[in-house]
């Protein structure tokens, strides 16, 4: 290469770099505009309050969004305590030995296992072996295992960013290890851990493949049993866990179902469902980015 060419390339590269970087943004914009144009007409109240239907203009996402709420709550209830606990162990307690190394490699590998394989795991263990059937509980368990590595890694990173002087001060006052973690380290790392949890949940909310493999039905014209119902007798509230064992569908599965129908009308339903799903995902990510920004500001 002669000097002149290098000079030219050198001066135009930043522009090319910026353009390529913005290419992704352009795709995202095209995606949003496309989904909005296709689906905005279907976005009315009855879309949220109707069950799926054979007629495209009467179909709605009631069972899908309620199912998504059920699955997300179940996932969070399982993944958050286990993930945070495992993160605390690896960051605060684990000594450098073979077992710790093994757990770490294992988590790194699990984070890269395709999500569809978690569905197969669920089919084999939860549906067949434990006879939980294709229930909310099976789905929640699968997604919990899926996001566990994300929560563990986020917790570890958050704990690592807590200055060791805080721990030293706590020990100096006679606190035990657990007291130090419980009352000093965890509160300091709280918002960063919370950020990780939100990101993990926003990943789980869009997962489709593992739940399809699990056998989640696509046509569900009913809701899981409500956990709390009013009753005539004292104490006037009836609590039921039956909902966890009921079949379910979720928003991404409903969208997939509509996309694979040949009728044009269902594409509008799919696009409307996509708008709802994207709004939820973006809000969650936005909150996470904001929290991260705030906690970075506080630390610096």
């Amino acid at each position, binding site marked *: 290469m002669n000097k002149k060419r290098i000079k030219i390339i050198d001066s135009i*590269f930043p522009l090319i770099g*910026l353009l390529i970087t913005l290419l992704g943004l352009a795709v995202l914009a095209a995606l949003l505009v496309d989904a909005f144009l296709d689906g905005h007409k279907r976005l009315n109240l009855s879309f949220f309050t109707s069950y799926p239907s054979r007629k495209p203009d009467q179909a709605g996402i009631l069972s899908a969004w309620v199912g998504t709420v059920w699955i997300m709550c179940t996932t969070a209830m399982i993944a958050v*305590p286990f993930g945070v606990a495992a993160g605390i162990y690896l960051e605060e307690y684990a000594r450098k030995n073979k077992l710790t190394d093994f757990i770490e490699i294992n988590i790194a*590998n699990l984070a890269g*296992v395709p999500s569809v394989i978690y569905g197969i795991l669920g089919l*084999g263990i939860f549906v067949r072996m434990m006879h939980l059937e294709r229930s909310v509980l099976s789905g929640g368990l699968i997604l919990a295992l899926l996001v566990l590595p994300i929560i563990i890694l986020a917790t570890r990173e958050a704990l690592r960013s807590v200055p060791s002087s805080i721990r030293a001060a706590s020990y100096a006052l006679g606190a035990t290890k657990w007291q130090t973690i419980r009352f000093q380290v965890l509160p300091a790392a709280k918002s960063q851990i919370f950020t990780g949890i939100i990101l993990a949940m926003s990943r789980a909310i869009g997962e489709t493949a593992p739940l399809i493999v699990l056998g989640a039905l696509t046509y569900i014209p009913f809701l899981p049993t409500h956990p709390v119902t009013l009753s005539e007798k004292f104490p006037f509230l009836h609590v039921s866990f039956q909902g966890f064992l009921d079949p379910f569908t979720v928003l991404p599965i409903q969208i997939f179902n509509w996309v*694979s129908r040949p009728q044009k009308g269902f594409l509008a339903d799919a696009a409307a469902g996509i708008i709802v799903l994207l709004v939820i995902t973006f809000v969650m990510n936005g909150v996470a980015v904001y929290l991260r920004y705030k906690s970075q500001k506080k630390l610096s």
Partner: protein
Amino acid sequence: MNIKFLINLKETLIEKVLLGCGLLTVLTTVGIIYVLFSESIGFFKEVSLIRFLTDTQWTPLFTQKHYGILPLMGGTFLTTVIALGVAVPAGLISAVYLSEYASSKTRQIVKPILEVLAAVPTVVYGYFALIFVTPLLKNIIPGISSFNALSAGLVMGVMIIPLVSSLSEDAMRAVPFSLREGAYALGSRKIQVAWRIVLPAAFSGIMAAVVLAISRAIGETMIVAIAAGQQPSLTLNPLVPIETVTAYIVQISLGDTPHGTLEYKTIFVCGMTLFIFTFLLNMVCFMLKKRFSEIYE
């Protein structure tokens, strides 16, 4: 019993409980391997491994049954290559730009936006490939089918760009400044420093990013299930319908396949194939990452 003993007991108990939670991840891996292999053994009792690896047709749902994994692997290979053709060059250029050229303010704005690309659910990308990209491609290549590997691969590539760019950028920023200054002192321009000094120095980190991208593309499911078709065929033509390993798993899961049949077991055999490939790639990535974090310490 004194109080000190109780406190110590509590501390040890808590540590054990936390360790137990950590071991849950090991249990997950054991569970995956157990489920995949135990069902696959049943499959290989009826179909020989040689037939599975050499038969060029995959038709478990037809009356003429063939169980050759090659057409599905070919489909996965094709979409993966197309996706990498987009993600690797775009991701690398964008990483060089962000790490060497962009101001820290630009970086602060651009990076979260790129992360959003990775957060979009894959079913949405599938819709986009089928409804937007394929009709667009039809204008350019009239002969293209409604389901094809090209559009699925391209969209998958865009989805993977943030992964390649952010991991490569981390690797490049880990390169010590003295190396860059040395090159500048010898009269290099910025572009030369970026591509001839920083890029080679960050090589193992960048390779880790590429390997992870391959693994992600192989395991990607919804985009190919929606936009690439359901016809297993051993072809390198990106314009016709194909089927990937992952898309087959989705296809058969949607039907009502009775438990215990050979068709049911194909889910697990395909899963095992997928797991072995991604596992090897993840291990390579892990080692490359370890190497690049050690070099400059």
